[in-house]
């Protein structure tokens, strides 16, 4: 399909602008003037509509396809949450910063405060800031809070511990805050190796970052022991909330001993993923870390009105333009109010049931590196298929031809040829059964006709793309 720039016709116009109701301004000084307009497309509105409608058809999406992309919680996004967010589209973020301006933005401020309190209860933390703009941004903010905590206590800290199964964002976020990383291997049963962790733990460790259940979909039963060991060294426990969908109403990270947490509203709380964002990554903390939270903080005044507080002198400062990705928060707030207590418990129960059903039905056909009851996702390995020259990526590409977005492949890094399936709670048994049949068919083809898998996908607008060429030529801008 041609680019919108290739469809451009010199002189063609799209949007009509209003006629000026004021006199034309004097020209800008010559040294400030742009001499040649930016070469933006010249298209009609219909050109535009056809182009982007055409592009949209070249995407798989949750609304169109089963999308069991492990670790990303691609659940169905309730449509009514869109209506909810639209109610707040026109509020200028500067409004509450004007003198007495808080009064004019009570709805928006109270929504953020309301969401923070709901998230605090859900995670067992004492206070939540919704300012971070995505999961990784929440992680970085959380590690900044931990750095501020240690600075205030004059602790000399240098390291952050992560398990080898962690999301790449964990070590990357800690590095952004200036920490060195210690990686702990996984034990043969899939959890972080407890002995290796004990041996690595020392007084210079600032924090331990864990995902629980981890990226293998396994719940670590020794989590409290890990928290205790860390706390003995005045290291703080960081909970990566990417997998919170598994434990809603079952476990609260705050109860277990975690000090800082981020949640991904676009995963657990059902907001659309947008082709790679916007997300939202609120951060929750225990009481002793509240003074360090980013400013401005949303608070409730004594008279019951919601408002802003700049943040204490100990605050890490501002991490986003304003109060966070408000539009995402509004959707998540609507989702939580809609589902309520029982609905959220049903989410984790059905998510775990669906994943275990997937595991039970596919275990005969694919190697299972860690044979335990899983939580919200299960991780297989294509090592059995590799004996026939078939890789996880070949199975993924075959699934595309069958109309499925593939599971996450090659992650976590500690599983060879990993295939990570997260069905989520919103998928029906029929959908999963059909997917399972496709997976079994892939396993059969791997043995009998592996070339069919190597050739996939054949039904898409393009076949497998030459990524080496893309990286070598670095053609990232047209013309």
């Amino acid at each position, binding site marked *: 399909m041609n680019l919108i720039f290739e469809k451009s016709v010199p002189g063609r116009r799209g949007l009509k602008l209003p006629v000026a109701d004021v006199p034309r301004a004097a020209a800008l000084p010559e040294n400030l003037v742009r001499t040649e307009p930016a070469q*933006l497309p010249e298209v009609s509105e219909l050109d535009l509509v056809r182009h982007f409608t055409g592009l949209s058809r070249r995407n798989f999406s949750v609304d169109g396809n089963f999308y069991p992309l492990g670790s990303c919680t691609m659940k169905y996004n309730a449509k009514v949450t869109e209506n909810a967010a639209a109610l707040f589209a026109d509020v200028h973020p500067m409004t509450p910063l004007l003198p007495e301006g808080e009064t004019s933005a009570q709805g928006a401020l109270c929504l953020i405060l309301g969401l923070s309190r709901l998230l605090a209860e859900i995670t067992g933390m004492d206070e939540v800031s919704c300012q971070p703009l995505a999961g990784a941004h929440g992680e970085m903010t959380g590690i900044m809070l931990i750095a501020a905590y240690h600075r205030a206590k004059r602790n000399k800290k240098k390291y952050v511990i992560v398990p080898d199964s962690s999301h790449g964002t964990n070590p990357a976020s800690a590095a952004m805050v200036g920490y060195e990383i210690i990686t702990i291997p996984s034990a043969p049963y899939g959890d972080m190796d407890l002995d290796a962790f004990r041996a690595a733990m020392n007084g210079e460790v600032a924090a331990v970052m864990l995902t629980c259940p981890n990226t293998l979909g396994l719940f670590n039963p020794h989590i409290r022991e890990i928290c205790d060991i860390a706390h003995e060294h005045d290291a703080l426990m960081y909970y990566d909330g990417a997998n919170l969908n598994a434990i809603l109403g079952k476990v609260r990270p705050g109860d277990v001993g975690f000090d800082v947490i981020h949640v991904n509203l676009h995963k657990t709380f059902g907001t659309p993923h947008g*082709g790679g964002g916007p997300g939202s990554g609120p951060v929750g903390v225990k009481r002793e870390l509240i003074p360090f939270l980013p400013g401005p903080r949303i608070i409730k005044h004594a008279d019951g009105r919601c408002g802003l507080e700049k943040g204490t002198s100990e605050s890490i400062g501002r991490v986003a333009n304003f109060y966070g990705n408000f539009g995402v928060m509004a959707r998540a707030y609507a989702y939580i109010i809609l589902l309520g207590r029982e609905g959220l418990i049903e989410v984790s129960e059905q998510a775990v049931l669906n994943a275990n059903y997937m595991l039970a039905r596919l275990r005969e056909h694919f190697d299972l590196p860690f044979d335990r009851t899983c939580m919200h996702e299960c991780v297989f390995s294509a090592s059995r298929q590799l004996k026939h020259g078939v890789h996880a990526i070949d199975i993924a590409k075959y699934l595309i031809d069958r109309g499925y977005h593939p599971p996450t492949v090659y992650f976590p890094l500690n599983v060879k040829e990993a295939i990570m399936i997260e069905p989520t709670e919103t998928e029906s048994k029929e959908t999963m059964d059909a997917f399972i049949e496709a997976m079994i068919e892939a396993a059969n083809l791997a043995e009998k006709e592996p070339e069919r898998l190597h050739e996939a996908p054949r039904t898409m607008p393009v076949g497998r793309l030459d990524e080496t060429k893309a990286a070598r030529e670095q053609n990232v801008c047209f013309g």
Partner: protein
Amino acid sequence: MSYCPNTPEQIREMLAVIGKTAVDELFEPIPRGLRAKSFNLPAGVSEQELLVQLQEMAACNRHLINFIGGGYYDHHIPAVVDHLTGRAEFYTAYTPYQPECSQGTLQALFEYQTAICRLTGMEVSNASLYDGGTALAEAAMMALRITGRNRIVIDASVNPFARQIVTTYMKNLAVELVEIPTSSGSADRSALTEALTDDVAAVMVQNPNFFGSIEDLTAIAHAAHAKGALLVTSVYPISLGLIKSPGEMGADIVVGDGQSLGNPLAFGGPSFGFIATTKKYIRNLPGRIIGETIDREGRRGFVLTLQAREQHIKRHKATSNICSNQSLCALRGLIFLAAVGREGLVELAQLNRDKAEYAKDRLGSIKGVRVLNRGATFNEFTLELPRDAAEVVHTLLDKGLAAGMPLGEYYAGMANCMVVTVTERRSRGEIDALADALEAAL
């Protein structure tokens, strides 16, 4: 409400396959002692009840006529932007890890990168960052990586919120952040040149700056380059319809907030941040980058490229920790720019300037009011009032006017000043009403 489709019968069948009799048994790997102590949330509601609740909340926001900006602008959003980005195929997809079934998102983001390059006059752009402020912080970190130096010089007339974000990001790194004080609404050139020592990684400026002044940055670019430092420029994309591009002025890294490109005010987010640079620095860019390539049959296609910079491959050695960015908002930006088009962006920028110049004349001629900007402005300008600006803004707020942003809290000695923003959405009548109200309030 529940979006879980399986019936009790199906749940029993599934449990039988798993070899369990109840869903609770699946949670047995979680020791009893670790179970939730509380989960005290309200009961769920229906769609209808939800909307009533939220409408009541939204009704507590008050509609104001906005003469405030500061990085977020009240522009018209063409209807086509909502309709096309609302297509679920864009809306409910995720990061295009599997390119064959994600060509829609990938091609759109490649087009977005092209639009940003053309707008800014730069050679390469990534596929978006979170917002303008975090983009500025990422640009600072990028400059530190490229130069291997540890000092950043930032002009105080850069948006104060963006500067606060940069400060937050730098706090834990061995980096010195030098702030150049502003002199009545413009970068203090001599102080800037003086601060430009041999260990400076980047000089960071904003154009138009927070006070609304437009400057030619060419000389600053030369001065920075002479010392081996990079020039990082934050820009307001709509202004680039009229103003010389940062690329032409010699910027090395250009950032900005994409809210004004088709994203609603939405109480501050989501919008997107953009970052663009020259080809030689592409490997130092943070975030996703889309590249063009071909498939086995020679058909053009697009993929995530140069992923070896990113956290999911490089982990702690990545150029940034960013994973999810703001794809859908960037798509809004692309559709906005294509809907407005080549000539349309020039006209839109002109219309903004026309309205703002009219307002500047009207407000500036009120007795006791002075326009602070010495040089040209785009659609924002700074007024000095004969009394405390916060008090005046408070008075006008009661009349439904968000008259401007008082500066006292952000700049020492500027308590009587406020920044006024006028977009194409403000009518002559609204501007006249503001002028009358301001005159009456003084």
